[in-house]
């Protein structure tokens, strides 16, 4: 298929959408979370109900990806009114359809957040949960059918690819990404444009692009939801990256624990190949690119880029010292660009709207938006996207609806096992890379674990250390032995058997492990311990005194 054919298809699809004969659309969330609470049965039942009432010509039912408020699922949304019903099950579908469509009187007690708000919003977009968000990466998640390429095309899908292939040189693309000031969303926050430029500059007959979808941080499920909800957006980002750096082959490494994300991404690849969006001479240009999916096998450390590359090569996923960085010598020794799922998902909007547009969102040093996964003791857990620099207070109280059972906020863990906790006195912190580092934590990949005043911080530190100990690849001694020793000492203190000397040893060890571990995972493993010590030292001391 060439460029013209694609445009013909897009025009046809857009015309179809504009002349849509349907009066209503019902979106049924079919993210992994809603599916496990029964959305597939709801979808079936809804289809039967609409058929039975002979409304098939008025109502279109669309299975979509994640809408955001995961613990309220299964969710269904009525368009054009943006009315969302929560915890829907097969038994109340008939009455929802009757009230919402026929009588036009929404059932208020079943609307989204009816159990939190004094009055739930009939137009869910007016609820602070959605109102305070700015969706760029997640824009079409929850609105389009992730298993239909046409749905993506109607929403400006592959428009950025078309622009890049026919109107921009590799240098232009890299300049645009640099101009956007986007930073990698995997955790470290390295400037994306700079990384692309580095790979571009290496001369080689073969280069690779890798999408890191080995999301493993406790509390993080952003990448899973993006892959499930809008897989073509990630694919388009990888294609643009391939064009920019001069690669013709890509690998998407997705966790083995994400079967639905794998299924939908595989389907997206198949659809794209069929349409000529992957393969030789894409859209009639000189650019050829193909993508293979790689399924992980259960190893947290494979999220580290050199370990991930080793895993693709069929080896144990153990990191190696850098330099050389993958940009110089990556997969099979060739220059390789590795970016995270969320980073790739953010590329197409930058190309479509310009780097300038993106750079004006967020803060001067952290441009754009960030997707966070809310988990722990928060009322509304789920997936959100906000401009960088939004305060933690707004996220927890306005968007997240506050702490469960009206308890007090005690701390939030950012950056998973590599990050730290933000205590209540800093709840007004702006969520951007620098502000979090100043408080002794990191942005990380976006998991946000909320803890209430009943949470014991020594126990939290023990849990994170147990995670690091379990997941240590065992290659270097500081991490393999150090995490085990730190875990045992924290456990001893937590069990009320610790002494002052244990605490001193623990602090000493933390510094050794931090400074001498081979890779970032080992070097950051002491962080949850150090940050709980920084803000909640009294809890450690109380446990020691009681001993």
């Amino acid at each position, binding site marked *: 298929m060439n460029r013209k054919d694609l445009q013909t298809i897009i025009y046809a699809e857009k015309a179809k959408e504009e002349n849509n004969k349907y009066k209503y659309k019902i979106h049924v969330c079919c993210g*992994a*979370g809603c*599916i*496990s*609470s029964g959305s597939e049965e709801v979808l079936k039942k809804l289809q039967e109900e609409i058929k039975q009432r002979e409304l098939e010509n008025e109502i279109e039912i669309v299975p979509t990806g994640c809408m955001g408020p*995961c*613990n309220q*699922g299964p969710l269904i949304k009525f368009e054009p009114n943006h009315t969302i019903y929560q915890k829907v099950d097969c038994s109340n579908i008939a009455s929802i359809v009757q009230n919402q469509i026929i009588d036009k009187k929404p059932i208020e007690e079943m609307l989204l957040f009816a159990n939190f708000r004094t009055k739930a919003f009939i137009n869910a977009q007016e609820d602070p949960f959605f109102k305070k968000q700015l969706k760029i990466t997640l824009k079409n998640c929850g609105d389009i059918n992730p298993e239909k390429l046409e749905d993506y095309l109607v929403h400006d899908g592959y428009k950025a690819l078309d622009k890049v292939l026919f109107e921009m040189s590799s240098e232009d693309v890299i300049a645009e990404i640099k101009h956007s000031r986007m930073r990698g969303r995997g955790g470290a926050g390295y400037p994306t444009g700079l990384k692309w430029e580095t790979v571009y500059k290496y001369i080689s007959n073969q280069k690779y692009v890798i999408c890191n979808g080995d*999301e*493993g*941080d*406790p*509390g*993080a*499920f952003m*990448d*899973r939801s993006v892959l499930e909800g809008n897989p073509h957006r990630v694919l388009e980002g990888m294609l643009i990256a391939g064009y920019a750096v001069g690669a013709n082959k890509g690998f998407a490494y997705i*966790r*083995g*624990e*994400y*079967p*639905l994300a794998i299924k939908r991404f595989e389907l997206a690849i198949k659809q794209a190949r069929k349409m000529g969006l992957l393969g030789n001479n894409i859209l009639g240009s000189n650019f050829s690119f193909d993508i*293979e999916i*790689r*399924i*992980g*096998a*259960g*190893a*947290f450390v494979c999220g580290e880029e050199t370990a991930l590359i080793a*895993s*693709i*090569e*069929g*080896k*144990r*996923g153990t990191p190696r010292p850098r330099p050389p960085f993958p940009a110089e010598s990556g997969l*099979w020794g060739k220059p390789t660009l590795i970016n995270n799922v969320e980073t790739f998902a953010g590329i197409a909007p930058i190309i479509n709207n310009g780097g300038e547009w993106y750079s004006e969102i967020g803060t001067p040093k952290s441009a754009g938006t960030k997707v966070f*996964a*809310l*988990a*722990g*003791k928060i009322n509304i*857990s*789920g*997936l959100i996207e906000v401009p960088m620099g939004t305060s933690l207070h707004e996220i927890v109280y306005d968007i997240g609806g506050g702490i469960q059972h009206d308890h007090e906020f005690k701390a939030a*863990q950012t950056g998973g096992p590599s990050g730290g906790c933000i205590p209540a006195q800093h709840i007004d912190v702006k969520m951007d890379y620098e502000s979090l580092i100043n408080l002794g934590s990191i942005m990380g990949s976006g*998991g946000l*674990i909320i*803890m209430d005043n009943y*949470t014991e911080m020594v126990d*939290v530190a023990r*849990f*994170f250390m147990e*995670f690091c100990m*379990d*997941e240590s*690849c065992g290659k270097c001694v500081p991490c393999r032995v150090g995490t085990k020793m730190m875990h045992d000492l924290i456990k001893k203190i937590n069990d009320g058997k610790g002494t002052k000397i244990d605490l001193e040893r623990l602090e000493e060890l933390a510094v050794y492990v931090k400074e001498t571990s081979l890779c970032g995972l080992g070097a950051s493993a002491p962080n949850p311990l150090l940050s709980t010590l920084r803000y909640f030292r009294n809890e450690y001391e109380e446990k020691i005194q009681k001993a």
Partner: protein
Amino acid sequence: MGFMKFNEQQLAEFNRLVARYPEGKQKSALLPVLHLAQESFGGWLSEEALNYVAELLQIKPIEVYEVATFYSMYHLKPVGKYVFEVCQTGPCMLRGSDNIIQYIENTLGIKPGETTADGLFTLKTVECLGACGYAPMMQLGKHYREHLTKEKVDAIIEECRKNAAVNN
């Protein structure tokens, strides 16, 4: 079901997996081939299965062993028909996964890593499955089971027993 060789269809899949990688880099297919072998040989990988994979990929058996023992999704012992992979990481812990794991242990009479005598259930505790929005949770086959309570665990066990009876 124990170890046997790949049938024609599985061999075709094997060849497809190997063809994804450049000449001489067939070892890169090792992880996907192990996934395929585990799926084909009854949910686990025996020593014979590992040796067979080494032979097929023309690599040393040790190269297969070191990989199979490194990644947690490869089972090196027989597992039950239903594997409960219960998340034990922070966000689930905050929402009570400890109690759920304890309850499953008591109900089925097995510890993590063990299989019930009737070969139906295996209990595994795993690290974050990225489903923290609906904690506590577990994975069963290709599906998540969420907001777990004791009642839900009972219902899931009952459902598995029924399915097993029907399939027999």
